[in-house]
């Protein structure tokens, strides 16, 4: 019975989706060259029961390897002869090139257990890296046969009954915590900046398995919750002294040079601050400043208030030290009054330093007035939090209404009455200690922010420890999956409303379109693109100042922004994801335009420009990528090649062998010549050659760009040769041709990689073998419509995003049917 019901659920889901998708309009048209009209989005593969007609038509178009009608190949009869014929020359009969042997398993069982080896074989067959060009090649059908056998038999992938996998319960990471608090409470404060760094896995910092919760973080959670609620809700309405900051830009008179909102110079000329003092009474003034001693004496600061000299204070003049100076003043009635400051002891004759006159002065960093006790107004967050309590007949019901409303948003699902009661109990405890109503509610709200239901995104399921039990996630969970994927934050009212009405799956496409248009979707740029393309790292690289004197923070920031803007444009205008490589435009400000030798761009603002002939569009020509894959003093073709293979093509080279052979061994002739010649010499070593032959040519194709991405025609050893040949055979001259080859020959790899990376981020777990049908399906859809919204829709309608199963060995999942048929009478 159980297995039946778990098969019906996905069907219900699929049907629901179909209806929803049929009703929606296709995504906005894109102007990109690759764009084709959006096809009706395909449904997640349906289980054993016959799928609706529309989806059946689709199935036929699928490549044979995942289509269900291909019979499962058999090892001895189908696969083994192929391996013997095409692979054993190097990987069998005692030979094990690259450490790989395909006939040395102790038993068939041992062979099937070795998923690592077969996964590697699958990958090399898929990208066509093996057999090498100069060996005889298996036909496409034969390749498919081996791949299908690995899929079905080794990994037990069953496309008719897809395994959705499971996601470990995820705690909010730092960015998600900050965003959630912003949207939930509305305080202007980034509490998670004080949390320890989040660990990442699979290239992202939102992976449930590695987001641990050490004790120090729990302490921070409690402290943050207390602070958030203290800022959101006034604890007592007693009048209290309030700080009034002086806007340093508004100071009149005195020197004007170097005036910013964080620093203002004061000299012997009077500088005047017009201060609006809201009530009569005594004010304290606190001034933080620094100065330098001249002629053995520090600057003396004269304070005048409303025309009367208050006092004169001397600054210490200590290097790198700030002095805090204080004064007190009184006013009889509220109003605007002048506070005048000047240096009382200018040098009789100014000194000169570096040809410039130098007189005693001080730099003011901050001026603060502390008012007499003022009545306080509740902040807007307090109105928002307490609103559900209005109109309730008594305080108990009001408190419960407030808690239920806040709890629903914080837990991203409705609270049970007993949950509300538990948090209300805390308010009662507070009341016993003479807390006001506000304080009592505040304490209960604090508890909600420390509850595991807030800190973790839990996904309840009927049989959490049964790997055979798969089901669609609830709409409440789906709302959270969507919002943390696209916004790195909690669902908003519209998502909650759909989840409450059970209409989220029906309105899925419309919701996704709406969410992608929301400014909050910039979280995808910062958190997804920032990690996928590693542009966050531009802040961390430190090119050598002597080799690259032009490198500075402004350039680094501009480079990071350029790549962010490209991703943002693709997202906002729903363009082809291939434009990550294929864009024929870019974004520069004056600083970056100079670096790229693009004329006619002025100012700090970014503008979209067409690219000069010598710089390819897309990330391959971006300073960010070119710099973060370089060493501090020179380019690294290996790192550039590795980046492209890992992040754009999704075909990472295997890691280097643990014992790296000594390249510069004393017995070996010293490597000479250009970087390229030296690299080519060392590729003679067969242990290095197999991987470096894949990485290095890509990097050499980009050698026209130096270690910080500026154009060059030669390096220290001579003219640049940016020709090359990919390991799969394609030859190119320079970066433009390299890019064209990648965009045409490797198009499918790029689309698959974009899917895998986005799916990893969206799910918060690594992509597993059983996700292959979902990835293949999305990749096929992207082949037809590679637009951004198409990718996002493929991800959010995929089986692993829509469903989950209980925990346990994934191979158990596909045993389900076997077991069912065996037990059938």
């Amino acid at each position: 019975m159980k297995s039946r019901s778990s098969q019906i659920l996905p069907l219900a889901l699929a049907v629901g989706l179909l209806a929803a998708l049929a009703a929606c309009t296709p995504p906005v048209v894109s102007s990109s060259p690759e764009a084709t009209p959006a096809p009706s989005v395909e449904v997640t593969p349906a289980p054993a029961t016959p799928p609706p007609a529309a989806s059946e038509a689709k199935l036929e178009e699928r490549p044979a390897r995942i289509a269900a009608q291909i019979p499962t190949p058999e090892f001895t009869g189908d696969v083994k002869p192929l391996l013997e014929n095409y692979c054993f020359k190097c990987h069998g009969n005692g030979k094990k090139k690259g450490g790989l042997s395909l006939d040395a398993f102790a038993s068939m069982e041992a062979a099937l257990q070795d998923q690592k080896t077969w996964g590697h074989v699958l990958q090399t067959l898929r990208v066509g890296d093996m057999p090498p060009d100069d060996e005889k090649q298996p036909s496409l059908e034969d390749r498919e046969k081996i791949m299908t056998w690995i899929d079905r038999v080794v990994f037990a992938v069953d496309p008719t009954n897809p395994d959705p996998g499971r996601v470990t319960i995820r705690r909010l990471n730092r960015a998600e915590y900050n965003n959630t608090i912003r949207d939930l409470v509305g305080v202007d404060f980034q509490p998670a900046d004080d949390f320890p760094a989040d660990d990442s896995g699979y290239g992202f910092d939102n992976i449930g398995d590695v987001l641990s919760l050490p004790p120090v973080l729990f302490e921070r959670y409690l402290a943050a919750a207390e602070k958030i609620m203290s800022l959101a809700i006034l604890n007592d309405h007693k009048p209290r002294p309030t700080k009034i900051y002086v806007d340093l830009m508004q100071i009149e008179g005195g020197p004007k040079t170097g005036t910013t909102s964080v620093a203002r110079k004061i000299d012997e000329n009077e500088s005047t601050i017009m201060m609006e003092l809201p009530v009569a009474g005594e004010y304290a003034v606190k001034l933080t400043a620094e100065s330098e001693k001249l002629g053995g004496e520090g600057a003396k600061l004269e304070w005048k208030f409303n025309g009367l000299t208050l006092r004169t204070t001397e600054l210490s003049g200590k290097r790198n030290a700030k002095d805090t100076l204080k004064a007190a003043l009184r006013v009889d009635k509220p109003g605007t009054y002048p506070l005048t400051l000047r240096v009382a002891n200018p040098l009789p004759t100014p000194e000169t330093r570096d040809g410039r006159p130098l007189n005693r002065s001080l730099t003011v960093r901050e001026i603060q007035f502390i008012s007499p006790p003022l009545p306080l107004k509740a902040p807007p967050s307090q109105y928002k939090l307490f609103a559900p309590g209005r109109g309730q007949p008594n305080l108990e019901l009001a408190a419960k209404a407030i808690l239920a409303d806040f709890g629903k948003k914080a837990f991203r699902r409705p609270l049970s009455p007993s949950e509300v009661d538990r948090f209300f109990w805390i308010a009662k405890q507070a009341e016993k200690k003479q807390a006001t109503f506000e304080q009592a509610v505040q304490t209960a709200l604090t508890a909600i922010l420390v509850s595991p239901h807030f800190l973790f995104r839990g996904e309840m399921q009927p049989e959490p420890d049964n790997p055979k039990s798969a089901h669609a996630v609830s709409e409440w969970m789906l709302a959270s999956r969507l919002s943390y994927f696209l916004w790195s934050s909690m669902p908003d009212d519209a998502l909650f409303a759909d989840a409450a009405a059970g209409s989220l799956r029906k309105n899925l496409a419309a919701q996704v379109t709406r969410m992608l248009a929301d400014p909050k979707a910039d979280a995808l740029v910062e958190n997804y693109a920032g990690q996928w393309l590693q542009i966050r790292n531009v802040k961390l690289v430190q090119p050598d100042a002597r080799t690259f004197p032009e490198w500075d923070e402004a350039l680094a920031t501009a480079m990071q922004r350029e790549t962010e803007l490209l991703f943002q444009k693709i997202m906002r205008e729903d363009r082809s994801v291939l434009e990550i490589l294929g864009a024929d435009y870019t974004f520069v400000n004056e600083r970056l335009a100079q670096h790229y030798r693009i004329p006619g761009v002025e100012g700090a603002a970014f503008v979209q420009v067409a690219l000069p002939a010598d710089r390819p569009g897309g990330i391959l020509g971006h300073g960010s990528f070119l710099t973060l894959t370089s060493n501090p003093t020179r380019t690294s073709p290996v790192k550039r090649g590795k980046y492209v293979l890992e992040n754009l093509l999704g075909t990472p080279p295997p890691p280097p062998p643990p014992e790296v052979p000594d390249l510069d061994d004393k017995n070996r002739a010293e490597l000479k010549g250009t970087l390229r010649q030296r690299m080519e010499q060392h590729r003679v070593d067969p242990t290095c050659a197999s991987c470096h032959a894949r990485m290095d040519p890509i990097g050499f194709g980009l050698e026209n760009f130096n270690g910080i991405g500026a154009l060059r025609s030669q390096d220290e050893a001579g003219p640049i040769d940016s020709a090359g040949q990919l390991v799969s055979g394609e030859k190119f001259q320079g970066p433009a041709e390299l890019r064209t080859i990648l965009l045409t020959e490797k198009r499918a790899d790029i689309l698959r990689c974009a899917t895998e990376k986005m799916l990893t981020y969206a799910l918060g777990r690594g992509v597993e073998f059983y996700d292959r049908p979902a990835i293949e399906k999305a990749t096929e859809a992207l082949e037809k419509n590679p637009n951004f919204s198409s990718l996002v829709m493929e991800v959010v309608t995929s089986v692993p995003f829509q469903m989950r199963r209980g925990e346990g060995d994934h191979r158990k999942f596909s045993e389900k049917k076997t077991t069912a048929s065996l037990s059938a009478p």
Partner: protein
Amino acid sequence: MLIPDKSLQLPRRSFLRGLGVSIALPFLESMLPSVVKAAASPMGGPPRRMVFMYLPNGMDMENWTPSAAGDQFDLPSILQPLEPIRKQVSVLSGLAHVNARALGDGAGDHARANACFLTGIHVRKTSGADIQAGISADQIAALQIGKNTRLPSLELSCETTTRQAGSCDSGYACAYQHNISWRNETTPMPPLGDPRLVFERLFTTSDEDPDLAAGRELRQSLRGSILDVVREDAKAFQKRLGATDRRKMDEYLTGLRETEVAIQQQAKFKAENAAKPRPEMEKPEGIPGDMTEHIRLMYDLLAFALQTDSTRIATMMVLHEGSNRPYPFIGVTDGHHDLSHHGNSAEKKEKIAKINRFHMEQVAYLLTKLQGMKEGFGTVLDNSMVVVGSAIADGNAHAHHDLPVLLCGGGGGTLKPGRHVRYQSETPMTNLYLSLLDRMGVKADRLGDSSGKLERI
């Protein structure tokens, strides 16, 4: 069995008031609560401390290892900065971390070495799905004797908070490469690198936050109720979760319990804390841009933490294994990790030695500082055991034997520093930890690959 006799103990605060100044506090035996005496220092006297410091990418061993053994050993160029304090420093040669080796797991020596350093465990190779390391030496001590101080242990580093985006070492989850301290197989204890956060943790200045002034006492008195309710939440939640998720809830419950203990400890040590000297430093504003300044600030904070007996157990992952930071201020503009694959280039090795020597200058700064802190008849350094080392010897070969290891301080009279001791090659590094744990009054029979206690220290 020690039976505390309260009448014989001097009230500490009155004693302090009598002195009238908040200078370094002499630890007279009669002032210590007997429970502390029993656990921390079997012989009585001031508390013993244990500190583990990690330096990345191995060392230029030719300029590290002294040629002579015994107390007349020479100081090769990297160790030269330690000359003024050499009587407090022993060089231990021949120790190894076999579990940092590949052992069939392929590349990833940096991740393995980092996670193995204090655990002795061969960590599971995974990008994240099923992390498995083991409890580290410092946490074994924290669990047994951490209750004697306000903070059971302190985890520090000189890293910035911004992590490198993307994958870490060769298929290993980043947690391995960024944490040397591990509470258990799956929970790392992340180090704090921001001096402001460390300052706040040490001196509990969050209690002085003006934003939290209103209603502070009420709020503090209700923390217990809040934690009671969320504990019930977590327990009920846990029952409905699968195995891995239940472990995550265990982490939550552990954190909750330790926060409760921390709150109690804070109350218990409140009076004592108030009497302690505050460091003569302003609250740091964040991470200084200058690396030397950052390191020294962190070392200052570490020294103050030990001096004020806020904790007796600390780890300092100066930088994570595989760190690729350049050191332009000493003329090394290449990334450290890139350089460590020196291929026997004399020029690269010289640069590595420069980086190593720079770090020894900072270590000398810390040791000198601890030596300058008087307590009882000695100094804080006399009562400490500071291990400085790496789980990689030569970065080029990723060698995990003949590791560079220093053991500094007197261990409350239980160590004999000022020597170069050679051990048989492949002696487990973890044997050293067992010997130190023993001196801390901590029971530990095994740790990772340990085969016994290390003698002659």
